[in-house]
């Protein structure tokens, strides 16, 4: 079987990353932003694993991606808690309303 | 020419036939098709049978007769008749619903349940996808099922459904923890996550089954069973579709074919977790009577097609064990009252999780304690294989000599073991 090569995976990762960034930049829904973050992390993960397979990174890449997955779960939990708190206080999840500290 | 039953995978066999006109991806696709067809059988048939069994068992428990007419006696074709009826119904979607997701949800459920079957060994070596971390992937795939339920609940546009979906989400996320922990316990005992290896390790007399391996695994099996009940939304944990509170929970708005897909998924998942329990704890495809097993194996070695016959026998044993577990699930459902949602969460978070953690700790420490106290890793002298010795040595194949990186890597893996001698 011929190899797809590293570039293909990296491009997919880049697309994921960019989508995530756009998601973060455009969504007014707090949870939407969270999803954007997840996309960005996944883009990074994909890069890690691809490098792990195709370059000298070796298992380090896989382990790093494992750590990223676990930390992303933690991040999601905290972010969700914050979102719920925010919702409790503002009765909406629109992050544009989160401007209480604006000078 | 490699005999079909001796090939390690179907792909190998088809490759070995040397059919020249097949494209390069041909054998893989062909094998996939065959596997899917086989699995669909195991996916659909038992589900149908169990739906029928549920009706009969519940009827008997309630001192009724249940279906009696369809198919002559015992109403054994009742499931089929139901299916036909459901297929004929109109495919409805409520006006307020998110139609796209609403239509999609049942497929997610059914696909998740089906995919889990790919990793299940039905008999020694009969697995569609043999993976080293088969158990892990199977559990992961099975956990996707909840997504369908939650989306179904959300997209229905009904508060009953929404509540059902939320409950399901909370319940599943919680019960995944004890389920995972107790599923890891046999892995600790076996030293591998390969389901086929785990099954093969329980060869021999009945006390070689992992459930009887030590007190911790024994308890772990029951925790596992309870957690599977909950993750399957089976009574007494069927809060997601609690008909007395939520009409029908997340399936309130569904009808016809899509409704039946949910049910098919549920019963298939029931069968799957039972089979998983059998592989992990109850000796898989072994009878638990060593002479009998040995006799089977000797048949397999002696006569033509023996290998095949033996595996078929193993599969029968396996199916019977799983069916018994499914029947226990049915029995539990029609015997115990439903819990409240807070009780469900309490059961999980305050009892099952700590118990599972304790058992996990126990099963890790148990051989150490045995070694300290008795000087060996098994309770009874000579029974079973010592736990530490069970762990398969990392695969180090003796390749032909050429300076290939992987070879040298393998060499070094062996190094630590070398040190020990």
């Amino acid at each position: 079987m011929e190899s797809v090569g590293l570039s293909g995976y990296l491009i997919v990762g880049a697309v994921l990353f960019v989508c995530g960034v756009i998601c973060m930049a455009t969504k007014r829904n707090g949870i939407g932003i969270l999803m954007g973050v997840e996309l960005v992390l996944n883009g990074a993960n994909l890069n890690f694993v691809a490098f792990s397979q195709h370059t000298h990174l070796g298992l380090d890449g896989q382990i790093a991606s494992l750590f990223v997955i676990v930390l992303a779960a933690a991040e999601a939990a905290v972010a969700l808690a914050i979102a719920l708190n925010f919702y409790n206080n503002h009765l909406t999840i629109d992050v544009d309303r989160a401007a209480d500290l604006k000078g | 020419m490699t005999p079909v039953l001796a090939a390690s995978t179907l792909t190998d066999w088809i490759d070995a036939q040397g059919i020249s006109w097949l494209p390069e991806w041909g054998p893989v696709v062909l094998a996939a098709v065959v596997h899917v067809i086989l699995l669909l059988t195991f996916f659909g048939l038992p589900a149908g049978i169990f739906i029928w069994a549920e009706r009969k068992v519940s009827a008997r428990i309630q001192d009724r007769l249940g279906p009696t007419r369809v198919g002559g006696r015992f109403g054994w074709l009742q499931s089929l008749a139901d299916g036909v009826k459901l297929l004929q119904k109109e495919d409805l979607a409520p006006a307020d619903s998110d139609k796209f997701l609403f239509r999609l949800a049942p497929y997610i459920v059914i696909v998740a349940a089906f995919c889990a079957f790919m990793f299940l060994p039905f008999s020694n070596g009969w697995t569609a996808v043999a993976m080293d971390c088969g158990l892990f992937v199977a559990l992961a795939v099975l956990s996707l099922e909840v997504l369908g339920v939650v989306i179904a609940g959300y997209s229905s546009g009904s508060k009953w459904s929404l509540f059902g979906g939320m409950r399901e989400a909370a319940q599943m996320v919680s019960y995944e923890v004890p389920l995972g922990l107790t599923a890891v316990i046999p892995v600790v005992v076996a030293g591998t996550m390969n389901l086929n290896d785990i099954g093969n390790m329980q060869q021999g007399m009945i006390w070689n089954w992992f459930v009887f391996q030590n007190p911790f695994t024994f308890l772990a099996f029951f925790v596992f069973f309870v957690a599977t009940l909950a993750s399957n939304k089976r009574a007494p944990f069927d809060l997601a579709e609690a008909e007395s509170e939520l009409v029908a929970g997340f399936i309130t708005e569904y009808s016809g074919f899509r409704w039946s897909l949910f049910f098919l998924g549920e019963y298939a998942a029931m069968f799957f977790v039972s089979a998983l329990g059998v592989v992990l704890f109850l000796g898989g495809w072994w009878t638990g009577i060593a002479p009998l097993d040995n006799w089977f194996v000797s048949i397999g070695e002696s006569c033509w097609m023996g290998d095949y016959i033996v595996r078929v026998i193993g599969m029968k044993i396996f199916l019977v064990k799983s069916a018994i577990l499914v029947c226990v699930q049915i029995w539990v459902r029609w015997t115990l009252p439903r819990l409240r949602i807070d009780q469900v969460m309490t059961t999980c978070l305050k009892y099952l999780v700590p118990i599972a953690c304790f058992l996990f700790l126990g099963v890790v420490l148990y051989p150490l304690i045995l070694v300290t106290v008795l000087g060996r890793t098994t309770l009874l002298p000579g029974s079973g294989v010592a736990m530490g010795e069970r762990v398969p040595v990392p695969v180090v194949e003796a390749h032909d000599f050429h300076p290939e990186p992987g070879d040298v890597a393998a060499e070094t893996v062996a190094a630590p073991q070398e040190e020990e001698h």
Partner: protein
Amino acid sequence: MSPDIYIETGTTLKWLLTTAWLLPLAGFLIEVFGGYWSGRKSRAAAFLAVGCIATGFVCSLIALLTWLDAADLNVSDIWQNPRAVAAATHEVSEATHVDHEHDADHAADAEHHGDHEHAVPAHSEEEHHGHAAHGNNPLKFAFNGTFYTLAKFGRIQITLDYYIDGLTVLMFTMVTFIATCIHLFAIGYMSDELTESYEDHQVHLPGGKHFHRPGRFYRFFSFLSLFCFAMLGLVLAGNIFQVFIFWELVGVCSYLLIGFYVERKSASTAANKAFIMNRVGDFGFLIGLMILWTWFGTFQFANTNPDQTGEQGLFQMVRTDAGAIETEGEGLNRVAYMQSATGEHLLGNDGQARRIPYWLLVVAGLGIFAGCVGKSAQFPLQTWLPDAMEGPTPVSALVHSATMVAAGVYLAGRFFPMFTPEVLLVIAYVGAITAFIGATIALVVTDIKQVLAYSTISQLGYMMLAIGVGGWLAGLFHLITHAFFKSLMFLCSGSVIHGCHHEQEMTKMGGLYKKMPITCWTMWIGVVAISGLAIPITLPYLGAISFSGFHSKDAIIASSLSFSTLNPTHSLLFFIPLITAGITAFYMHRMWFMTFFGKPKDHHVHDHAHESPWVMCGPLLALSFFAAFCAVGGESGPLANLLLTSEPTHVAGGVQAAGELGLTLPSHHEIHECHSQAGMMALLAALMGTVVAYLFYCKQAVDPALVKARFESAHRFLKSKWQFDEIYDSMFTRPVHVVAKWCTGFDREALDRFLHSCASLAVGIAQWDRKFDEAVVDRIVNVFGEVTYAAGRTLKGVQTGRLRQYVMFIAAAVVCLFVVLFLFLPR
């Protein structure tokens, strides 16, 4: 005795006595912590305390029997076969001998009683040949061991030990028995306290009211239990340091119990007095301890375990096998050699023989004895004991007559091997003086408890005297007998006081014998016993017809007579006790007659008097039995024989021209020779005293008031207790006050002024510092703050608070960076 049996017996005794010892502690803890929750009207504490101490008594009794068995001193043996030396030299009755053959010398005696010697090889061997079966042990035989090691400093260590011999077991039995009786008595006596609101008639509040407080029944019993624990611990202790610990604990209990009616000024003062007086003695004790620790490196009495090669005890180091102190040199250069287990000189780390300056040994002995002086209320520290009568009467009976004050005598007896002849002489003189002073004061006091208190002082002096003159047996014999009859008399007085509604003045009593017959006649037994009266007829095996006090006092007089015969310069040591014996008989009968006979002097008291309840009379009867018969058989009786088992080896044979002063201590044989003579003289003196008292106070043949008027100055002198309190006041208290005043002045004038000037200086500096702070430091900080604030204000606009905009900025910035990189970075 084989090592196996030795260990077995020792273990049995150890556990029995430990149980008896720790039970009161358990009782104390439960009472103290549980008493808080139980009601004020509950007697539970009393029952618990009685239960603990009674169980302790049973344990002690079993231990006593075990001991007798182990020592082959079974009951019939004691009666019929008086042992070895004791029997040979002390087979005494009123000038008649039961068994003439026992007059023979030791060897003949040993031959004669071959069978007996076979039974008790350890004793005979030790006594006759000085070679103990288990090494260098001047103390016949004893069990010892360690409970717990408190601290270890290299080879030397501080431990909790036990040391069990005949004396220990006997003391245990005596203490637990008397304590049991007194606990029972106290249930009745202290029943006033079973109330939520106890009115203390002796505490006067302004406005003519009396003080009210909740009853303290449980507290009383918890203190009693603690006291029992401490006393038993003292007796069981296996090293001198442990003795000191319990010594202090006993002192604390005494303090608590004397000050039980803490609201009464007199009681709290008396408690303080007792405590401080004891501190004076304990100071000496501590000096003694330090000397011993420095030179000997151990506190243990002796190590007698046959199969255990532990450190040697103090006694074994000081005395040779034969029981002598081996010395060398003269005067201050004199040194004493320490002995090793093999009978040779103990070698130090440098290979030289270990020695201790002789004078230090004397000082150590005197120091320890100073502790005994304080605890046993000997001259010159005797003044606290009469004041201690402020405590409830059971306390007086238990603590201040029978047991605690006896602890001093006990320690003097226990530590006897460490005392050099010089120390013994001091002990003897102190004892004699104390006996005389106590007795004379007792002549004139009218408070019934005070009479008994002074008689206690006097009797303790007797015991010390006996020990000082080498009559080890006599002293401890008297200790036991005295404990019984003195506690009996105190309880009787308690019964009288209780019956007369807390009236203690004898001048208001009289004619009570009809009102309270049991109390009257039990007290009579005590009075006769302490007076040493007897009928000079001898019965076989039983000796003279007499009560216990006769035998023991007889022994003391005999010892002192023998001593003064051998050392004519010290003949005063015979005459003082003889005279005192007469005085004793007089004042005891005076008290008895004044209380129970004659005409009632105060009709109010007389009319309301009543016999005490049975819970109080029962103990009286029990104690009176023992007061009468515990010493039956005299010095060949069971009690004396039991004591003899723990007598130090060197006592029996006497000591010739020992020490710097060349004193000679009488041997058993010599004491025995004086016995009949001394006995007659003592009896005569006692009879005289009795008759005079009868004439004075019963027959009214002579008016006491007339005599009082005649000897007015002497009476005043005695009444003011030989003016000890005044002397102490002017000697110690006032100078201290003056010094304190000077100190105060110095404090105020010099120290305070200096401190004040320091403070004002600091304030001045601080003011300057503050100005600097405000002008320089604060301004700098403020400038920074203002700059930062201004910067913040200007940058505020950038902070839009819109999350998505930030993301956008970041992304745009990344793009820009890349572009810049691509444009300007060389490829």
